[in-house]
């Protein structure tokens, strides 16, 4: 047995139940397995364990709805190069890069072992942002354009290095890490679970609900508490967040091509959506709403009515915007055939979430590893587009907004508020166990992993935001495009800097 098999709804797994295998066995198994579209790696990380370095790998089986856990160990200072999986399956590159950066573990024939995010506790302190090894191409007719790290707009920092032939982009390399705050280690530095919840909400501000849900459910798995009807309220919060962000991005895409009507209409609708969340929980981004084992903001009757009216109105007006966009030739000329990521490429680099679904790769935790109300009340059908261009990504967003509105209506029309528990920050956690939670945020798959020590405290907390995978998809999308189309390609993904940098 190489794997311990479980699913996204099961309780935490005792560490002793996770098989400790030989790396060679795992390597040989993954080499074959990852060729199949149904498998992908949700997380793969190392953590110090006494004098050893213990590696955990979480593999998802999309068609059987299973989660497979495995682990292997090596001595902390062991000087041996592991054969690289990235060389065979580039999708694993962020994980291997992180392991190398933190623990100096060598991966043999790893093709792209560059620093990932320059964490404070990186092994090689000489590796800094100033000497990031950018890929270069020499040539008389080529020029380099550097954008960032200070961004012209008010978004986050990241360095983008383009190698261009005239207006055409030959290569784009994205160097991130400027937003690193040490989020993962902060979780282990405090045992105050309210503080940890706030940290989770701050991992990526635009996915506050998704990350808080991922944190809360991993804690709930560790303390074995069941949340009952709260699952429905969480699902509504998640779908409201998805609606707000997709609508905002529709507006941002319109703005980038100077289409004013789409921009102002979407800005107004986005405000209406986040104000609905605010009317529910007091914060426009849903901060304060998700708490472990309960909530301070249960949904009363009058708020249910308010959410239903608002969502119906947003859905109606947003539908008009979609019709406008689809019937405007000047917009279609900008969005179609632009920034294409073909399915095979998306598959190879391990894209997740709506970006992957827009390229025909059906990765959706809501259907592959259902949780909360997706497991009980909703039979989720993912929206999949085939072209992989900016238009596909926009249309995926458009249809997901309508779908989310329908889900909210479906859940709320039959929802009767009952007594919902208050948050519990003091429940005892299972000692020496691993709990993971998979949540489909609006960008894609979010994976949180908590490992407890003998005292039942969180010893290791690992976070994965979908942006970690999808930044590479953006670099692929702009290859061969005009450099002036980079902004709309970027906006069509709208990836998180701080979610990547942690």
């Amino acid at each position, binding site marked *: 047995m190489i794997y311990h098999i479980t699913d996204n709804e099961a309780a935490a797994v005792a560490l002793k139940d996770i098989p400790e295998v030989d790396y060679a066995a795992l390597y040989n198994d993954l080499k074959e397995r990852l060729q199949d579209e149904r498998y992908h790696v949700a997380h793969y990380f190392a953590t110090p364990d006494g004098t050893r370095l213990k590696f955990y790998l979480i593999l998802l089986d999309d068609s059987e709805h299973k989660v497979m856990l495995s682990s292997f160990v090596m001595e902390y200072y062991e000087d041996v190069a592991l054969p690289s999986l990235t060389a065979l399956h580039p999708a694993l590159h962020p994980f291997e890069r992180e392991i190398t950066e933190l623990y100096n573990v060598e991966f043999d024939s790893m093709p792209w072992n560059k620093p990932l995010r320059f964490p404070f506790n990186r092994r090689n302190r000489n590796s800094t942002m100033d000497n990031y090894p950018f890929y270069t191409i020499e040539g008389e007719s080529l*020029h*380099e*354009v*550097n*954008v960032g790290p200070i961004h*012209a*707009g008010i978004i986050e920092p990241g360095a983008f290095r383009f190698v261009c032939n*005239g*207006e055409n982009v030959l290569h784009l390399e994205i160097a991130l890490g400027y937003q690193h705050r040490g989020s993962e280690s902060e979780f282990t530095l405090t045992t105050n679970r309210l503080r940890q919840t706030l940290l989770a909400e701050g991992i990526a501000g635009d996915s506050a609900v998704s990350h808080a849900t991922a944190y809360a459910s991993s804690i709930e798995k560790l303390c074995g508490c069941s949340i009952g009807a709260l699952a429905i309220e969480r699902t509504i919060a998640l779908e409201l967040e998805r609606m707000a962000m997709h609508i905002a991005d529709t507006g941002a895409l*319109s703005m*980038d*091509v*100077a*289409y*004013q*009507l789409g921009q*102002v209409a979407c800005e107004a609708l986005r405000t209406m959506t986040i104000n609905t969340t605010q009317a529910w929980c007091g914060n426009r981004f849903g901060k304060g709403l998700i708490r472990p084992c309960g909530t301070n903001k249960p949904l009363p009757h009058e708020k249910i009515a308010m959410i239903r009216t608002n969502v119906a109105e947003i859905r109606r007006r947003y539908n008009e915007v979609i019709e406008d966009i689809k019937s*405007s030739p*000047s*917009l279609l*000329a*900008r969005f179609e055939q*632009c920034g294409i990521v073909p399915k095979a490429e998306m598959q190879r680099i391990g894209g997740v979430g709506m970006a992957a679904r827009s390229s025909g790769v059906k990765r959706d935790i809501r259907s592959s590893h259902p949780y909360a109300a997706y497991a009980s009340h909703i039979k989720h059908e993912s929206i999949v587009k085939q072209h992989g261009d900016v238009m596909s990504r926009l249309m995926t967003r458009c249809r997901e907004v309508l779908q989310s509105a329908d889900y909210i209506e479906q859940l709320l029309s039959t929802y009767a508020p009952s007594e919902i528990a208050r948050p519990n920050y003091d429940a005892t956690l299972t000692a020496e166990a691993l709990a993971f939670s998979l949540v489909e945020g609006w960008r894609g798959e979010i994976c949180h992993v908590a490992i407890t020590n003998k005292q039942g405290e969180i010893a290791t907390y690992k976070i994965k935001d979908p942006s970690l995978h999808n930044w590479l998809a953006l670099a692929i999308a702009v290859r061969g495009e*005009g*450099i*002036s*189309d*980079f*902004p709309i390609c970027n906006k069509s993904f709208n990836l998180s800097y701080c979610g990547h940098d942690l």
Partner: protein
Amino acid sequence: MVGIALNTLLMIVVAIAIPGVINRTRATLAGRKGLPFVQHLRNARLLLRKGSVYSTTTTALFRIVPAVYLGAAIVAMLFMPVADLYPLISFEGDVICFAYTLALARVAIILAAMDTGSSFEGMGAAREALYGALIEPALMIGFATLAMFCGYTSFADIFAHEQSFNAQITIVMFLIAYLFITIAFVESGRVPVDDPRTHLELTMIHEVMCLDYSGIDMGMIHIAGWLKTACFSMIAANAIAATCCFHWWLAAPLAILLTGLSIGFVESTQARNKLVRNTTFIVTISALAALIFFIGYLLQSDINI
């Protein structure tokens, strides 16, 4: 003398009013309260009162360009008659002088952009040079059509001698007006060719060349832009006024509204071109100019079709 002063004054008013009309149109169509009509003047006043910051990589060339740019735009403006009024400068062949005064401004700003050594500004300069070269045939053929029709090569004479109410002239004049409004879109860097409001350097054309300018220099470049737009707008307004009622009190408001409303409307309802499609867009304007020239030629030579 009073006529010349009034002419110059009206040109300034047109130049100031057009950006205001564009902003109001955009705000109205977006259902927003929008900027006050004179906000661009306040911004310019603020800029003009500020000093400039210069990058250490730039040379003296970079510093004199805003003055050259504004100077060229002012001179170009002085060639332009407002319908029946007389411009300050007018001589035989001033249409060519007008075109190359503006070309001088373009060359100056391209050189300044290259002078900064920034990769963004180099891209902007390359784009501006390409589009400038492509729009020039349209401009020249447009002037040629006007000159062919009346036998004069000075703006003041062309329009003063072209008042007539016959159908042939009306057709050509309206086409000419359309042509020059389209040229105004390109020359003033508006949607669908360029987007003056974008913050994305990679997509900019005109704005990216001015990234290193600040304070008073930036103010001068803005003002020069208004003047340029006013010149093209006034040619279009004169052409239309010539067909019905050739008076300054018609031509001046017409110049403001024609360009102001059409730019405002297009910017509210249309997306920008993909950059590579701009070339096609601008070449099409030149093709249109050639077509107008031939229509004008056929109509003038009274061919019985």
